[in-house]
């Protein structure tokens, strides 16, 4: 654990929610970046490569799905967790195609963000395994 910290990207247009999530993740010891929209995040990516993204789906501008597709193209090693308040959200086929399924899906509100932190770690480990 002495290595470079896990880099986490939080994309959410709801500032207070983003802030609490960022705070939690930082407390967990991750290096956390955040963006309020997909476009902003995509702009960040080339300069700030991240390991795991926690992505809200309902965003102003491009939605979460489009972002993930674009981000995956930009950084194929990047892992994604979906964090949405939409009860009727279903994982579309394009995302399933890049390995995103039910275990990557988390719904708001989450009484304990610990489960999300665990998922980040799991994905990070998996990403390393996958890359190396």
């Amino acid at each position, binding site marked *: 654990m002495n290595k470079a910290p896990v880099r986490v990207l939080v994309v959410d247009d*709801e500032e207070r929610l983003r802030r609490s999530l960022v705070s939690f993740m930082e407390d967990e010891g991750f290096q956390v970046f955040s963006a309020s929209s997909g476009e902003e995040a995509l702009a960040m990516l080339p300069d700030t490569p991240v390991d795991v993204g926690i992505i809200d789906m309902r965003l102003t501008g491009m939605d979460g799905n489009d972002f993930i597709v674009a981000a995956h193209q930009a950084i194929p090693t990047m892992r994604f967790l979906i964090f949405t308040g939409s009860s*009727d959200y279903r994982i579309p086929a394009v995302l399933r195609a890049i390995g995103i399924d039910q275990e990557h899906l988390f719904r708001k509100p989450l009484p304990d963000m610990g489960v999300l932190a665990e998922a980040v770690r799991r994905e990070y480990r998996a990403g390393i395994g996958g890359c190396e």
Partner: protein
Amino acid sequence: MGLAPQQHDHLPGSKTLLLVVLATALLMLGGTYGYFRYEMASMREQHFGAISSVAELKAAQIHQWRLERIGDTQLNPKSWFFREALVEWQRKPDDDRLRRAFEEGLKLYETAYGYEDALLLSPDGTLLASSHPDPIPVQAETMRVFEIALREKDSRLSEFYLMPDGSAHIDVMGPVLDAAGKTLAMVLLRSDAATYLYPLIQTWPVPSHSAETFLIMRDGGEAVYLSELKLEPGSALTKRVPLSNTELPAVRAALGEAGRIQAPDYRGVEVLADWRAVPGTTWYLIAKVDASELLAETRYRTGAVGLVSLLCVLIVAITARLIHRRRQSELFAELYSSEREQREAEAQFRLILYSIGDGVITADCNARVSKLNAVAESLTGWAQEEALGKPITEVFRIVHAETRQPVECPVHRVLREGVVVGLANHTALLSKNGPEYQIADSGAPIRGEDGGITGVVLVFRDVTEEYARQRELAQMRSLLQNTLDSMPSALVAVDAQGQVIQHNMRAMAWASGAQGSAIDAPLEQAFPLLSRQLERVREAVATREVMEETKIPMVTDGETRYHNVTVFPLTENGVVGAVIRVDDVTDRVHLEEMMVQSEKLNSIGSLAAGMAHEINNPLGIMLQSAQNVVRRFSPDLEANRRVAEECGVSLAQVRRYCEEREIFAFIEDIREGGSRASAIVSNMLQFSRRSESRMQPASLPELIERTLDLASHDYDLKKKFDFRHVEIVRDYEEGLPLVPLIVTEIEQVILNILKNGAQAMSEGGTVLAADGVTHERPRFGIRVYAAGEFGAIDIEDNGPGMPEAVRRRIFEPFFTTKPVGSGTGLGLSVSYMIVINTHGGLLDVKSEPGRGTKFMVRLPLRRAGE
């Protein structure tokens, strides 16, 4: 049955009448007889007169004839010429000229007076001359008279005599005297009696076939018939009868009496006869006529009179008879009339009997056929002649139409019991010729006058068609009743007065059962629950419009059921009334309730789905922030301690403060509230329809067992209710097919139901304990079985149950009887949504206060569209 015998003898006056008739008859006959006698006597007298006249005439004629004959003998001989010539010839006997002159003279005699022979004899009897040469010699009888005439010197007639050839002759002779009175010769004239005399005697002045006159003469002890009998030729001088036979008229005449007599004659035939002496002779003339000829007319007349008398008698008798009859008919008019009426009635009865076309067989007291009418002949196939005397069972063969067993002949029963035997149903007559007829028969005894049975009359008719029609009618009726009974509705037909005319099976559920049959009973008695429909019936009849009232709640056996009542007016075909149709629409009402419920929940679901995102985000902020707050007080984080020290406080102090001021508790409250709101939202989201299919075949018993295990570990449940103390009565049907379902959702449903029941039982238990009643151990009865197209789960508790008002609202969202805060109020409504909408099943609840609650889950065994 016969007529009363005619009782003439007992009729008053009939005897008198008979006497009158007899007297008349006697009188008439007596009169006739008297007339006959008188007539006969008078006729006889008259005839005797006639006969006497004839006889007298005849006698006179004969006398005259005799005188003429005498005269004939005196004419020439007394002439001078004749005397002189004879004297001359006596002197010259050989003078042929004289001989010839005499012979010519005799010839002249013969031809002039019609004699057969004329002879001239000498007094010694020697033939001198004759009219014919060689005449037949003078017969001996004539010679006696010859002597007398010679002595007396006078002319004489001889007696009749027979010539040698048998013909009767009579001679007359007279002397030829000379001037001195000396006899010179005798002239003898011979005549054949048959030539003149006999016809003279025999002729009768009037035509008569039996009238007869003849001469008779006594000759010694005999009477001899002198003349030829008209009726017995050749009798002259040969027929003789002894004088002793005095009955004969001839004998009486011969005996010398003049007189008349009615007596049998020589032929033995009754004759009227008259006889008298012929003057100057010993002859008697007898004239006679057959009595039968003379009296024939009298007899005829008497006969006619007799006939007339008889006719009169007959007329009298007939008149008497008629009078008698008339009197009789008058006397017995009433009897006749009544008898006629009886006959007419009888005839009419018979006519009716025969014309109605019934078969009629009569049998004697030995049950043998005595009569068949035409219809009976055609039905039995037996002709009257061949059936006669046959045992009735042979001719009238009957069996039970269905069982085919022989049926006892009514004739035998009538004979045995002496009663009229009525119609036997289902009797089939087996005709001799093969066909079979369904018949209705009856037998009645025929009684004699003494009241004893003399026979049996059997009347029957062909009811084959009638039965077929009845059967058809019964079938129609049965079909109609079956149709009515198979209707899902209760149907009651009433007339305008409200009396029940007809009802179907289902209506019996509404019947009071007070009376045996509801038919014809007033509606309010037979179907008290429908009594308030009477007004509607009247209205429907009056307006001819269908009246309808829907969803009328009625409580029966503590259960509220809903009914639609429709009243159809009956105005067709003269029937005035109405049909009341009652439909139990409880299930439909429930279904409608369910649909409403489901729709309600659905709208909540779509609402929730629409706003879930907007609510979840703030909830996320709350919960995440609260978590962060708690974490940032945690000593576990290095940063917390560092920052606290930089602020001049120790983390421990801060934590102590927060605990003192219950900060952590408040934060926990925020978290709890947020979580609850979050649960509500997620529950609400389940109301929305989701087509997503995650169904998989599952075993209901396994699912239930898993849920029971889950329930026993449920934290919230454990707080109030220990599942270890609850009795679970399982009734799982074996071989139940797997049911397609979403396992987690159905688990949730079962869990919700169990939670609801557990909660209720925990309350009920307290109530029971407070009442001092023995605490009943909480019990769940769980039954799993297949119910038609559904897999069924019934979960029954022995809790306090619930009133109808609660029961009806139990699936409504946010409806709860639990204390505020103890639940979301959505558990059962979510379960409802899961079962109804997601799984296409049914969820219902039955409950009554004090009797526990029963939830019924029905899940389709096959998914729709599969």
